């Protein structure tokens, strides 16, 4: 039972982290980032290859984080900046194109096979009478620390305030002198950083592979269940998704692990399409 709870907490953390990345960029730039999974695993590969080539874990991870931030900035600079203000499907297809490019890059640069991100910690941690796999413990701690850090930045710092302002009222913020472009750029940087961290932690806990980009789908489902523009929502919904997946694996049948959260999303789409915590969109009665 204890290991089940740990599994859920670790998955919850990773999905919430990745989901936060998606929600952050949606809030400021209104682009639904379908490339979350690819971004995460790409950075995971960077760290895994760095470790394979001799760097130690505490050095490789900041390297990964740095590349994630650079990648976020690059994506903003070359693409998002030019399509701000266009209808939503443009941004959607753009992220699909970016996801495909990243997929190809992973094959060309990294080979696309399965690699682990060894943190140098393996075996079991003993807490009291519980014997828990260390990799899960590290993943859980890492994920929640990152979530707390990003949440703190968002709530407490000036930057966070600016991002919230741009998310709520773009025109007003611009009129008040906020550099909207810079704020959106920074939100993309943080968003891709969050995705990258999720990928590193997933690689630490399991491994990185081309097929692992499916965590992006789980995180996206969490975003949609929670509300695309709500950070609270995505954290709560990530819990639902992680719990559903692990519960289905353990008590129902692992074949349905990936379809169970989709069914929950379907129910939400029928009943409350804007998500549990999302802004109630006034859907025109057509």
């Amino acid at each position, binding site marked *: 039972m204890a290991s*089940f709870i740990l599994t859920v907490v670790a998955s919850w953390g990773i999905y919430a982290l990745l989901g936060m990345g998606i929600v952050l960029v949606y809030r400021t730039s209104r682009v639904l980032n379908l490339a979350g999974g690819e971004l995460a695993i790409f950075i995971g590969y960077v760290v895994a290859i760095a470790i394979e080539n001799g760097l130690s874990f505490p050095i490789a991870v900041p390297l990964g984080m740095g590349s994630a931030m650079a990648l976020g900035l690059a994506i903003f600079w070359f693409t998002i900046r030019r399509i701000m203000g266009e209808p939503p499907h443009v941004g959607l297809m753009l992220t699909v194109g970016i996801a495909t490019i990243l997929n190809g890059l992973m*094959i060309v640069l990294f080979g696309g096979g399965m690699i682990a991100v060894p943190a140098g910690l393996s075996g079991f941690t003993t807490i009291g009478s519980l*014997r828990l*796999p260390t990799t899960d413990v590290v993943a859980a701690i890492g994920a929640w620390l990152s979530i707390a850090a990003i949440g703190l930045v968002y709530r407490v710092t000036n930057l966070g305030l600016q991002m919230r302002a741009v998310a709520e009222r773009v025109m007003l913020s611009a009129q008040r002198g906020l550099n909207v472009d810079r704020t959106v750029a920074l939100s993309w940087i943080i968003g891709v950083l969050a995705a990258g961290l999720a990928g590193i932690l997933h690689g630490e806990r399991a*491994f990185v592979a081309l*097929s692992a980009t499916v965590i992006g789908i789980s995180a996206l489902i969490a975003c949609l269940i929670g509300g695309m523009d709500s950070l609270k929502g995505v954290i709560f919904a990530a819990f639902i998704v992680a719990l559903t997946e692990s519960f289905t694996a*353990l008590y129902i049948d692992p074949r349905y692990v990936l379809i169970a959260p989709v069914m929950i999303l379907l129910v939400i789409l029928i009943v409350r399409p804007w998500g549990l915590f999302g802004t109630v969109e006034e859907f025109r009665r057509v």
Partner: protein
Amino acid sequence: MRQKSRLATVSLALGAALALSAAGAQERAHKIGYLADLSGPMQDNYGPIVEGFEFYVKDLNGRGGINGVPVQVAVRDDQLDATRAASMALELATSVGVNSIWGMSQTRTHLAVYQTAARNRTPATAMFSGIKEVLPPSPLPYAYSAGHVFEVAGEVSGKLAATMLNGKGKMICNSIEAPGGVAACQFAEGAAAAGGLETGTVLFPPTVTEFGAIAQRMMSMNPTIVVAHAGSGQNVGLIKALRGAGFSGPILMGSHGLNEAPLINALQGIGSLDKLQIVSRFASPDSTGKELADIRAAAQQYGKKTPIATTTIMGWALAKLMDASLRQCGYPCPGDKLNSVLENIKVDMGSLMGGPVQFTPKDHYGTTWWRVFQYDAKEKKFLPASEWLEASSTPTLRKQ
């Protein structure tokens, strides 16, 4: 007028030159095609199979070919996509003009390739696993397999599990939710139950990378032995998670496109390599025998720097089958003539496999021999842990 006639003569001369050069370029060679997934995420599995095949062909051509006629292999990449595989098979059969297709990649492409090959009267022989459509009583025409058909591999693994546990205990089979995987576990359960074991199956989607909860579920079913028929990448994650969840019994892996070195690397240091076994039709790369020495010599000669794997042996064995069939066919050897040769062929594989590869008109797979290899921590190799066990090509299904 003069200009026109000059033009005419020049073009006639050019045309004649081209025609002559084309005729001259028609050399004597056996043209065969090889289809595999060379660029997708499973390339680590298929790469060595192609390599093994190509080593054999280079070696063969170096010795003068088949009765003086060299073998030309056209390799095409199907990128694990059924439609592309069918297109490439068509290109090989029509544009390149091969008389046979060898190799093939994952089972999802097999039906499409077999259909295209049959429509163009070109026999296709799969090495990486195989689908049940090559089994008796009525195999698809022009379709053969010399690899691990999931149904037969499943039954063998079930029987082995029962033997290893002396008929007492519980076997849990796991695989991916794909037709081959499901079949493997069905037959494994059937055979294990016939041997007196309790059984159970756990299936998961092919894209799962995190096996914590799945391993916990398997533990809750109290297995004594676990039989794993998933792909080698997922098997790594599964084995790690199983040992992490506290399972200390033996784990028997079906060798579907297995490459030993990455497996050993990935599981090092977690104590996950004990009691790890593989069941395979082919000798392990650390076995002895004349044929294996030949493979190692050829690999070295043609520049392979890493040690050979079971998959290299698979490629070499397939090439041996190709050699024997072309030899019997003679030159020139059109597709349907080669097909009738293959339908009645028997090739001795020596130390590579436990018995000959034999096809009949009603059986495009044949009786097979399987062996268990267990990981030896001292030698850091997979060494034989059983004799060669015979398995028929008509596995008996006992559905739950």
